[in-house]
């Protein structure tokens, strides 16, 4: 009995010493890194490292899909085309303005201006259609200059519909030998506001405020 008791004690002591030593050995790597230079080096992570799930991100957040990327690609592509058409539209727009017939215009000057106006409107709506049809990304909170750019579209959009109609009315009145009168006399002013809003909307997205 006595022998067994001693044996038990010895075993316990050995176990405790063993535990103690192993605990020290586990500490070893950090002891080895005690000096600053060594402490600063590091190596790639292991399996014990945390995972994205440990961080509490959901599967939906961490897993991408080709569909989302395709939507983003399509959107960027269409908006690039939108910008190109938008910039190109400024050429006939300015020309329409410069060739606007004055009070004593002849019919060919009016036709040139009118023709350019129609081309401008056509290109304008092509520009707009790319912006309108570009896929929207759900959950986007609109921020920055794009808000002004879009707000200005509420001025130049209707303006670009009304201006040519008023222009055509003015042209008809002139061809009938009349002075431009009634609502048609607003054509020039409406056209001017439309041009100003359009140019402002280009500036809105190209200049940083």
């Amino acid at each position, binding site marked *: 009995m006595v022998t067994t008791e001693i044996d038990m004690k010895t075993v316990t002591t050995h176990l405790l010493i063993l535990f103690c030593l192993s605990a020290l050995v586990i500490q070893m790597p*950090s002891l080895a890194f005690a000096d600053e230079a060594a402490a600063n080096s*590091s190596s790639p992570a292991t399996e014990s490292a945390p995972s*994205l799930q440990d961080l509490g991100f959901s599967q939906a957040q961490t*897993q991408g899909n080709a569909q989302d*990327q*395709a939507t983003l690609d399509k959107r960027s592509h269409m908006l690039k085309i939108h910008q190109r058409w938008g910039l190109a539209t400024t050429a006939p727009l300015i020309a329409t303005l410069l060739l606007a017939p004055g009070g004593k215009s002849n019919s060919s000057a009016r036709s040139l201006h009118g023709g350019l106006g129609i081309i401008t409107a056509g290109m304008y709506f092509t520009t707009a259609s790319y912006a309108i049809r570009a896929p929207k990304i759900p959950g986007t909170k609109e921020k920055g200059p794009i808000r002004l750019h879009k707000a200005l579209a509420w001025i130049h959009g209707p303006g670009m519909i009304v201006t040519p109609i008023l222009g055509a009315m003015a042209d008809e009145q002139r061809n009938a030998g009349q002075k431009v009168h009634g609502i048609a006399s607003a054509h020039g002013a409406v056209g001017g506001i439309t041009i100003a809003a359009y140019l402002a909307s280009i500036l809105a997205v190209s200049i940083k405020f």
Partner: protein
Amino acid sequence: MNWKTTITVVALALPNLARADSRWVLESSTLTYHISHPLHQVDGISHDARGKGTCHAGQCDFLIAAPVKSFDSGDSNRDLHMLQVTRGGQYPMVTVRTRLPESASSLSSVTADLDIEFAGQKVPYKQVAFQRSTDGARSRITGTVPCTVADFKIDPPSLLTVPIKNEMPIRVDMTWRTE
């Protein structure tokens, strides 16, 4: 075993028990990417990163991750283009992994080897320097990771046909606490 041995053994073992595997949690963070263009200087900021560090045998493995779309440059349209060029639909997260010795938690400067996964690429950055300061029970880590657009095979976006610069440094400001 006599009582002296027992006490010695227990006394030696206790600090080790106390220093058993510790864990770090990212409490708050500001990650800022900077891109430059002759016409614009852009900072995109995210406060949505989450991070954890698990320490074992004196080594701590850290993972920090943020959704790519959480970076806000103050222009929602630019952010969506950023998401597109960085293939954020396909790879919605940016993750950073690193391993540091536990003892680094008491140093004022730490250099770390980072593995960054972003835009479908995994890029190692060696020996990135960070400053560390203590604020009560918290550790604040600041530094800049010298990322470039080319590292992640990102097609550099251009404005008025001029592309952005290749440099895309990421400023890091993180506050960690132990769990």
